[in-house]
């Protein structure tokens, strides 16, 4: 069934799809966004329930394989030590992300030139700086200006409370003489534009019923829908169509909630499905022109998958840390070990993030993103009564390097509920990353002890399993069509009316949460589209 054509078709209503829709709004083009999930209704936020923690292991798990909701697609991660996590719905993974909002740093865009690894980006920090600022305002970012780890900028809202836990750890970093700073967060520290400030619920992963967290369901989408952008939900794109004569994308086929398959035509197609969903869609869009998948003449679609492998270290303090009070992952961030240092056994670096502690059920079951329950019996009682309330922890967030063997492919058997082939992840930790994790654990222990921890909890060697939040690199940008999928402003080298705007176009990963950069990049690409509108498809 064919529908009325649109000018711009955006696939995915998450972080990047929303940002580029906002950027293109002023063009007055007819914009349609197709989203496989739906709006999250106010009544569906689990944090309004007394047993809210249960949702974390069911319909609000970060893992689509656990949720198994109709809008989710399964992901085969049997050949990976990290499984991707996400949310499918209006807001995308900004529904259940934790709101940590650090920017990438200038060196992150030049890893080849500076450190001989990865590749240089075709853009740099200063190209993106004003889009970071713009997006911070639209999102409602809180933080403290003057961070010596960055070129100067000031978030629009004052920092959220560090709390006792953050203050304690900050003193530990000061004792060591190491960098730390109050975290930039996409969480309101004060009421803003009809949105309520953070109530310190500590359950950011369960959606933010207060609207304080800057999910695009609360930031961009209300504004966009009011302005006339059409958001069609429960619309799962099966493939992107191309005209064999011109080589241009003509639109998509999508499965609607009524069970029918529709053809939606568009002049411009923008893919915003994240670092797993985007290569999956392109690889599923095979044609005579593109037998290996759409826009894949370089062979790079799905390659160079990067996560941010994580591990955590926790210390036991003498006083309750009240770590469940406040945004669950954001208090302070140290970038002391972010840049390369020739004295270390690895290149590039990592951040030390102060996770607050989690709620009792999640702690008992092993922690957020980990399936490894704490001991039962007398030891259980001892841990929950005399350890859990006194915990403070640090998370080691490492920079993953691009490696071609880490990739997204199509599973030969697994499909979603519409019969569309599902993605398969093949991923292993690089030696450089392993060295970083080891180094980071040792430094985290030092800080915790310096901050007053009376002991450090033992931990396993494994990286966190449900930690594939940040899915990057699988459709990398670059100037060389033979080595990249899109150019320096997100346009496919092979299909000139096809753009990609999500984390898949990252060239390297940095060691920071990527959403701030994903959206800044989407706004940058929107700006380039507007600037080049007269010659857009040349």
């Amino acid at each position: 069934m064919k529908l009325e054509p649109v000018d711009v078709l955006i696939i995915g209503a998450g972080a990047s799809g929303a940002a580029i829709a906002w950027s293109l709004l002023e063009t007055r083009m007819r914009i349609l966004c197709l989203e496989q999930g739906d709006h999250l209704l106010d009544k569906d936020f689990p944090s309004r329930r007394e047993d809210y923690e249960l949702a974390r292991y069911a319909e609000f798990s970060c893992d689509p394989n656990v949720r198994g909701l109709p809008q989710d697609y399964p992901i085969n991660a049997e050949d990976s030590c990290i499984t991707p996590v996400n949310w499918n719905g209006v807001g995308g993974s900004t529904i259940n992300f934790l709101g940590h909002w650090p920017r990438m740093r200038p060196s992150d865009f030049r890893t080849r030139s500076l450190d001989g690894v990865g590749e240089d980006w075709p853009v740099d920090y200063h190209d993106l700086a004003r889009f970071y600022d713009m997006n911070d305002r639209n999102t409602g970012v809180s933080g403290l200006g003057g961070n010596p780890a960055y070129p100067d900028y000031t978030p629009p809202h004052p920092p959220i409370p560090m709390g006792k836990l953050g203050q304690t750890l900050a003193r530990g970093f000061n004792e060591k003489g190491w960098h730390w700073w109050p975290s930039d967060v996409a969480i309101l520290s004060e009421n803003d534009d009809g949105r309520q400030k953070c109530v310190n619920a500590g359950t950011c992963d369960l959606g933010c019923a207060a609207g304080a967290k800057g999910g695009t369901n609360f930031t961009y989408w209300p504004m966009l829908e009011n302005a006339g952008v059409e958001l069609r939900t429960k619309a799962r794109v099966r493939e992107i169509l191309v005209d064999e004569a011109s080589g241009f994308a003509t639109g998509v086929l999508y499965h609607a909630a009524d069970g029918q398959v529709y053809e939606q035509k568009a002049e411009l197609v923008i893919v915003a499905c994240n670092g797993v969903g985007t290569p999956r869609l392109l690889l599923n869009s095979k044609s005579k022109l593109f037998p290996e998948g759409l826009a894949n003449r370089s062979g790079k679609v799905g390659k160079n998958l990067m996560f941010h492998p994580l591990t955590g270290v926790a210390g036991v303090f003498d006083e309750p840390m009240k770590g469940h009070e406040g945004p669950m992952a954001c208090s302070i961030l140290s970038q002391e070990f972010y840049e390369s240092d020739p004295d270390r056994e690895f290149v590039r670096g990592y951040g030390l993030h102060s996770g607050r502690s989690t709620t009792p059920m999640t702690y008992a079951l092993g922690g957020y993103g980990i399936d490894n329950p704490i001991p039962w019996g007398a030891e259980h009682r001892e841990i929950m009564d005399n350890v859990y309330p006194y915990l403070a922890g640090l998370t080691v967030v490492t920079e993953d390097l691009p490696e071609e063997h880490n990739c997204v492919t199509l599973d030969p058997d697994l499909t979603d509920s519409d019969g569309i082939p599902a993605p398969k992840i093949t991923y292993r930790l690089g030696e450089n990353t392993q060295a970083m994790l080891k180094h980071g654990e040792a430094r985290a222990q030092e800080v915790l002890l310096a901050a007053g921890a009376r002991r450090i909890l033992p931990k396993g060697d494994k990286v966190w399993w449900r930690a594939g939040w940040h899915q990057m690199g699988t459709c990398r940008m670059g100037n060389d069509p033979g080595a990249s999928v899109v150019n320096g402003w997100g346009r496919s080298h092979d299909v000139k009316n096809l753009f990609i705007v999500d984390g898949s176009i990252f060239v390297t990963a940095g060691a920071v949460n990527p959403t701030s950069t994903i959206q800044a990049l989407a706004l940058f690409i929107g700006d380039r589209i507007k600037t080049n509108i007269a010659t857009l498809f040349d």
Partner: protein
Amino acid sequence: MSAHKTINPQLALDAILDVLIPANRDRDIPAAGELGVAAFVTEAAARNPALNSALVTLIARAGELAGGITPHTVRQLESELPEAFSLLLTETYKGYYSRPDMRAKVGVGSHPVHPAGYEVASDPPALLNELTAPVRARGPVFRDPTGGQA
């Protein structure tokens, strides 16, 4: 869950749960069995065949072990039937800590966290200034290969 011939499955399950999460009498914290977590577990088992099968197997084996339900016999169950035991343990923790009153026993609010959340005071500017002073004093800690040029 089906009954076992030699023991009362309800009593056996309560006893196992009491061992998994024991009481702290000094702080008036009940054990999992006495709290009634068995109801949560059996309800979950009614929806989850794997868990149901695990329960049946564990309770049957518990009935065969001499000496009743003790930490020693529960350890034996864990050793002999690790997958079934893991399913039960996970569900026990879920059942116990989904109880708001048990959250409160370990220092976490019993209320739904929205809309009330928690009161956390903002950090006074003077404190922020004091804490960040040594960080600022060390100066920039980033490399900027473009020298700040857009």
